[in-house]
């Protein structure tokens, strides 16, 4: 049965989504009961796939419908995608458990519809990562997007308009990607990524190939919210229900960057991406602008979720910049940061959800006294903050290490400076919150004991939160293994 694992990681959630949709009409509480084992199976399957890919050291290719590519659609699970699969399923599993209570509170009588969309969203992301077909990727992208729109729009207040903008901009992005695939198809006649990669290098003289490249990349940049195409992101994440933004912030942008890595390295091949078309320098400068603007915009926010959203924008800049440095170090950093940033973002967003589990905490000033009431969440928050700032031994440091090394090796000092600048700004940002949460309300000089009742979030939220926080450190300590056994195989050999 293990040879069918690539199908299982998609089929199991799909079937469970249908089950949830049907049984949700009958009994609301059953939704979580169905969703949890389904995501568990997906997580385990991804781990097995990951293990298989690493031990056998070759990609697993699965022919869907039994048709070999390029005729049929194939799943191509290599080092890179298996890593991201594990990441997505792991993040989802943790998130699913952590937000159980929040979901019930936020979607009282639409829990079943929510869980169906939730599982479909994750299915879409898993499919995007696993697929080896350029057009199939578009379809899965749309699944993830449409479910994402719906989940974001399900909040009162400004969410609607934010969501509407997201739909419009997201559709432009997806359509541009589709158009880019059309251009590729026009000149190659193929849709399978490996097949395209074998044909494209022969077409270096055509003007269509750079056009296809630029259109694809712009589409993906819109989807990942790279500055200056980030307009939809902050509002969408800020006003979305908290159980949704905590899932989308870690996953959506990261998966889009994965797609960018895949398209750049495996569709357009490194030769075209880094030698013939050479957008690298321009893209890295855009990334520099993204990092700086994201950090500065984050600095001017008073709403915690909005601030975190702008940090997400800056982090997107990290990864895009790292990728387009075009050297091994930078790309390693970008891929490593996909993993690390997903976990970091999950951790920090969940911590914010945990902080607001009894009292709504939106504004920075709402965090007064939060550390006294919730010491465990506070500790987790600090770990995540330290990781985002980039301090060893948390994982954020190590990806930053690679990114900076890559920037130095490529001689792109502005990128290095932007990374350091953003680290400093992140430090200011987080310590601003920590100061409010730790100091206020002020005590008298010798702070006679305030008796604040400790009111921690429910264990269902806390335990996944602590596990995620531990993962931040564990990932940091296992960077070496991750890089030598996984990421170094994921980068084509011709990149030095």
């Amino acid at each position, binding site marked *: 049965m293990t040879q069918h694992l690539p199908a299982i990681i998609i089929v199991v959630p799909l079937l469970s989504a249908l089950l949830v949709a049907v049984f949700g009409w009958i009994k609301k509480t059953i939704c979580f009961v169905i969703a949890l084992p389904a995501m568990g199976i997906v997580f385990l399957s991804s781990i097995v796939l990951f293990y298989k890919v690493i031990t056998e050291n070759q990609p697993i290719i699965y022919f869907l419908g039994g048709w070999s590519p390029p005729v*049929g659609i194939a799943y191509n699970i290599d080092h890179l995608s298996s890593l991201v699969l594990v990441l997505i399923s792991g993040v989802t599993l943790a998130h699913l458990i952590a937000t159980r209570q929040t979901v019930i509170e936020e979607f009282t009588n639409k829990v079943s*519809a929510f869980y169906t969309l939730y599982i479909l969203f994750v299915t879409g992301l898993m499919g995007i990562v696993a697929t080896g077909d350029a057009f199939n990727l578009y379809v899965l992208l749309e699944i993830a997007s449409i*479910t994402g729109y719906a989940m974001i729009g399900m909040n009162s207040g400004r969410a609607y308009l934010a969501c509407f903008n997201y739909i419009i901009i997201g559709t432009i992005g997806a359509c541009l990607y589709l158009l880019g695939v059309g251009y590729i198809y026009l000149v190659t006649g193929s849709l399978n990524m490996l097949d395209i990669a074998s044909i494209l290098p022969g077409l270096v003289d055509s003007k269509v190939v750079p056009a296809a490249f630029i259109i694809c990349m712009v589409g993906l940049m819109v989807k990942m919210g790279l500055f200056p195409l980030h307009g939809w992101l902050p509002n969408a994440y800020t006003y979305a229900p908290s159980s949704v933004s905590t899932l989308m912030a870690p996953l959506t942008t990261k998966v889009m960057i994965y797609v960018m890595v895949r398209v750049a390295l495996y569709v357009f091949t490194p030769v075209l991406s880094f030698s013939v078309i050479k957008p690298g320098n321009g893209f890295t400068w855009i990334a520099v602008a993204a990092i700086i603007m994201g950090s500065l915009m984050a600095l001017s926010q008073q709403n915690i979720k909005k601030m975190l959203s702008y940090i997400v924008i800056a982090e997107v800049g990290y990864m895009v910049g790292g990728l387009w440095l075009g050297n091994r170090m930078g790309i390693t950093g970008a891929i490593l940061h996909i993993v690390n940033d997903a976990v970091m973002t999950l951790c920090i967003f969940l911590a914010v959800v945990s902080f607001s589990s009894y009292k709504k905490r939106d504004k920075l000033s709402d965090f007064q006294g939060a550390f006294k009431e919730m010491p465990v969440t506070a500790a987790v928050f600090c770990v995540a903050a330290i990781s985002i700032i980039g301090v060893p031994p948390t994982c954020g440091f190590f990806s930053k290490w690679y990114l900076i090394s890559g920037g130095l090796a490529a001689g792109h000092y502005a990128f290095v400076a932007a990374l350091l600048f953003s680290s400093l700004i992140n430090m200011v940002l987080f310590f601003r919150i920590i100061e409010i949460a730790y100091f206020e309300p002020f005590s008298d000089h010798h702070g006679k004991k305030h008796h604040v009742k400790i009111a921690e979030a429910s264990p269902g939220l806390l335990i996944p939160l602590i596990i995620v926080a531990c993962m931040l450190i564990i990932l940091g300590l296992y960077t070496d293994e991750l890089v030598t056994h996984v990421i170094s195989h994921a980068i084509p050999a011709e990149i030095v």
Partner: protein
Amino acid sequence: MKKLGLIIVLICGSLMLYGTIDFPDWADPSSPASTHLSPYFIETAMHDTAVPNIVTAVLADYRGYDTMFETTVIFAAGLACFFLLRRFQRRAPDVNLFRHMPTGITLRIKKGGKVPVDSSEFERIDSIWVPYDLIIKTTCRLLIPFILLFALYVIAHGHHSPGGGFQGGVILGAGIILYAISHNLRAAKARIKERFDAYMCSAGVFIYVGTGVLCLLMGANFLDYSALAPLLGTDPIMARSHGILIVEIGVGIAVMAVMICLYYNLSSAGRQDEGL
């Protein structure tokens, strides 16, 4: 803003025009798109699947996986619409309008007034008053069965002519929507209930995925219909043909149900009380 937008658009447009210069000529039979992959489909689809309509064959078999997700997309859209719009809290409208069928007189009953619910002579009408139009109702009533029949034909005959599950499903849905427009939403809901519709959505997708899983259980790859041959009692090639039919039916059901769901929710802004 307008000028800025225009400038952006013009710049984008000219860049894209620049990109098209190297395109192969339009309708050139020797362009890569026509020579690389498509000859395989054209020449062997008939042998592989016994389906003369190559589009159907490619859609449901070679690229059946895409189509499965296409169905899932539409399922997600229906669900999303329900999720976003549906309002369950039943707030009785301030004013109810009832029409006395034999005479065509309209009663306006305020909140709290006695409502002739079960009377066969009275009919509740939408608050935006619509004249009683016998011609439309009758014509639609006559047309709808044929529309539905045609839809079924489109689904079933997708192997040999343009059409297939998706088009047929849309037409099926359109038939119901026509009924809802010509009568009213409540009448349509009486025929196809919301919950039934939701089940149909899931069932349609389930037929598709289930077929794939069945193939998986038979030991072949996911969605490899030829593995169904022992179950269907045919040779693998015909099994593919039948498999395509099965999934097309699934697509048809799902699409129909989703179209109805979209209409129900959009036309009534989620209340599912008064429609178009």
